[in-house]
């Protein structure tokens, strides 16, 4: 696997709930980011192989390949892409696992407003 250079200000939204993916897309494009959307981990990996983004917003519970499985695969790809986990499960074990697999932040969707999401994304990409 070669090291990929992420596209600047590009964000891959990995979220199986359509309305949430659209909300994040609207919020982030309003802040000037370019976004792609994948509804499961498998599709997300396909997109990554073609064009590595700078940041991934990753849901944990998805069909085909869930968030932790995706993070395992992402580690093998040795990309410079950062990951922010956006999940509605605030399980400590899951949070620890995500951080161990390279996530920079873990946000609970229900507690995160649009402005807070934009702020966290901006901090991660600094």
């Amino acid at each position, binding site marked *: 696997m070669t090291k990929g250079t992420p596209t600047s200000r590009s964000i891959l939204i990995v979220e199986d*709930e359509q*309305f*949430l993916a659209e*909300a*994040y897309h*609207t*919020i982030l494009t*309003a802040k000037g980011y370019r976004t792609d959307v994948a509804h499961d981990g498998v599709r997300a990996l396909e997109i990554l192989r073609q064009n590595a983004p700078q940041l991934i917003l990753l849901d944990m*519970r998805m069909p085909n390949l869930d968030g932790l499985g995706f993070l395992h695969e992402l580690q093998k790809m040795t990309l410079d892409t950062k990951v922010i986990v956006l999940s*509605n*499960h*605030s399980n*400590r*074990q899951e949070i620890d696992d995500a951080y161990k697999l390279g996530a920079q932040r873990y946000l609970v*969707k*229900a*507690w*995160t*407003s*649009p*402005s807070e999401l934009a702020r966290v994304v901006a901090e991660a990409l600094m």
Partner: protein
Amino acid sequence: MKHSNSPSPYLTPSHLANVFGVFLLGISLTFALLAIVQDIDDNNVRQHLYSESIRLEASFQKRLTIYEEIMRGIAAIRLVDADNTISQDSWDAYVGSTNVLERIRSLTHIGYAQRYNTDQIRQLSQDDPASPLMQLLSNQARTEFAPIVLTNGAQTGDPLAIKGFDLLQDPTLRVAMDSARDSGTPSMTHSTFIPRGVNNPSNEPELVYFMPIFDTPQPPASTAERRQHIDGYVYVSIFPHTIMDRVVANQEIESDTRVNIFDGTRTNGEVELYASSREPSNGPSVSTTIAFGNLSWRLNVATKNPDIYRTGWSYIVITVGAMCTVLAAILIHTTLRYRKRQSALDQHAKLQVIRDELMSLASHQLRTPASGVKQYLGMLLEGFAGDLSPQQRELIEKADTINNRQIEIVDQILLATDVGGAKLRAVMKEEDIARLVAEVVDEQRLAHKTHHTLAYVAPRDQVLAFIDRDYIKVALENIIGNAYKYTPDRGTIDVSVSHSGSSVTVTITDSGVGIEPGDQDRLFEKFSRIPNELSIKAGGSGIGLYVVKELVESLHDGTVTVSSAGGNTGSTFTLTLPLHRSASPKKVVQ
């Protein structure tokens, strides 16, 4: 939380049938074993009785031998007396010197009968016309006679003691006498009743034993010769009961042995010669046949006390069997109840797990649409769709507030589910609890846009406690949040932190509606809500304080208490946490 349909602690009919079946099986086995043991015991008794019958037979044979010796002694007199007869003097000397009747108590008579035919009597009567033998000739049906010529008897009027009494006139005596004559050996009558009138009131069966005396030095060889040379008979009479009396008196058998003697050689059926008791036997008996002279007697031997000869194992079997049966039934009953209870508990636990998982799943699922609502309302409030009019903003903010409350409720339910299912993983570290309380106070002031006065008195120094920061923060947020909810606007909420050597105490006192003393016991129960005006307005899940209690007490070994006089006098919640690492293990993730 109590469940309305708890499993019944009582066994089902099939379980009870199993218990009853075990009980019946135990009883059956006990009785089966008892039957075996009793059979063994009865064999022991029979063995004893068989020994007794052997001893009894030996006693009879001993006496028979004595009778024969006595009769032979008398017969021997004849050999030494002149004229080959037994004189009265010789008789008296023998009987007197031997004291036979005194020594042999079972003998009631001893005598000698002389056999005559009619020619002999006529010859004698010529010599002595007044001889009483002449009376015998009046019986013209017979040609032979055997009058008693010598006797020692006990009773007046007793035929066997009357000189001149013709023994051959009695058919029973005659049979024995003829048998003795023909065989040349002693012969005994069957049991017979010799009438003695008032002198034998019991009228017991009697035996008369005859020894033939021949007029030759040696007994003749053939029956014909014996008939020709029969001279007379020595006889003794015996009562079977007197034999048995002597046997018992001499302790020749056990005193508790019961004996029935039957003469079995009669042609018209058995005749009972002797019975030691008329009471029915309550145990086994043994019947044996003994030869008494020419007779064949049946002895039936029993014992009055069969239990003495039993091993006693039957009592042990009954006792042990009954105990084992009862114990087995109790054990089965207890086991079945335990298994039923365990099964019910397992099922309850499984249902609890399923319920918790369903609640968790449902709650997580509820968070998703709430998250979507939060994003879209947030975008509206943040101007993604352009500026909002004040009215639009107010309405959207209300919607946002309501959505946040929903999220808060779901969070509470999720936390309560994790707490109840012991799924929490505490990350304990030393934290400055005074600073944590200050942080929560500041956040609550910002979150509640009300006119409450929230005051916090913190210690000057750090107060380091060994806690899970996030969970204690949740507990503090719950209690201070409740203080806001249940205190009217412009009321006061005072928070303070104090510590002693081993613990830290956080006290939250409000000037709110208070809690009636009767309601305080259930305040920390799951889904408990105390109805009042403010609780209805505030809403809520009723599990916040349950979560606080579990987080503080189960996770941190602390305590949380409430005091209030009710009636709008406010409430004081007190959290106490140990300052140092607790010795007891915390709940871990399953």
